């Protein structure tokens, strides 16, 4: 049985190490003019970080390449990508992505 008091202290520790990286760059950088090169670099962060989080989740399964028919996440990404590209609508893309996954699970019994 774990001590709930110790768990809470651990959670507070987690709060501190999570919050500082969240707040310090905002505090430090939003009040001063950054050099153009730094701004250019930061402007690539959203594209880069979204791709870095997304692509492994689509093509890997438990740390291995999985591009077979059973990797629903990957196959559903293709129509989702297409709809996002054509419509530029977040809602339409999310609905299509979920619809494809739900449909494949119900009809094809995969994923």
């Amino acid at each position: 049985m774990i001590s709930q008091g110790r768990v809470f202290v651990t959670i507070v520790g987690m709060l501190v190490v999570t919050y500082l990286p969240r707040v310090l760059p905002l505090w430090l950088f939003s009040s001063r003019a950054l050099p153009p090169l730094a701004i250019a670099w930061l402007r690539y962060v959203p594209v880069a970080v979204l791709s870095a989080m997304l692509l492994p989740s689509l093509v890997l399964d438990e740390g291995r390449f999985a591009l077979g028919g059973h990797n629903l996440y990957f196959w559903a990404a293709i129509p989702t990508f297409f709809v996002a590209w054509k419509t530029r609508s977040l809602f339409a893309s999310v609905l299509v992505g979920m619809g494809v996954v739900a449909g494949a699970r119900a009809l094809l019994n995969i994923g």
Partner: protein
Amino acid sequence: MARISARCASERGVVVRGRRGDTGSISKAMNRLTDSAGSSGRPAWVRGIARAMPIVMGYIPIGFAYGVLAQQAGLSLFNTLAMSALVYAGSAQLIAAGLFAAAAPALSIVATTFVVNLRHMLFSAALSPYLKGWRKWELAVFAYELTDESFALHSVRFAANAPSKIEVGALNLTAQLSWILGTWLGAVVGGHIADVRPWALDYTLSAMFIALLVMQVKHRVEVVVALLTGLLAVALTLLKVGQWSVILATMAGATIGVALELLLAKRVADQDAAQQEGAR
């Protein structure tokens, strides 16, 4: 270099135009682009809640999963909810629940959380140019609810125009409340609810990331950056660098982007020079 500063100036122009109100045609177009759920007639807080809905659909089931796992790990209901209220970071909470279950020492749980959540530093830095007019305490509140998903939404939105603080706050608060609600449902009724997989709720956030990535990519260089960074992250994950893979791939990807931008600018400048030479 000239090209970078020119682009910065033009983007600043867009931001300023956006701040003056939703009258500019660019900001209107961008509103349609990023804000299919909210029309400009609604109050800011309603728009914020509406824009949070894709996050809510993803957070409730994932928060639910965390709630179930935390209960199984032996956390009290209070501590289970406290983690969602105080730490508010999905993957770190799921990992921590596993570590608590394995009776890992507190220090290693905190250290793991630090590494897993260090990527927020990049989010915070990347949004800082857009939040110059905000007070320190407003930034402190904003940063508290900065997650992968809220960052993804904000970064698309801020690049187009600056929404009101109320809209941003409403979006962030709605997202976190849905995370806490999901946690509570998982902790209290966890074992009794049937599988959520038939509704594909586990795919909501992936689909949202795909759409937001597509919306972010506007230039050739960004296509290259997205592809290279994604492939690098896959390679690093296969090499088992674990939680560092996202941070390392992102830093490399952004550096490649700036390098390409400088190279292209130099080529354009060289061509111009050659043309002038030819004209003479």
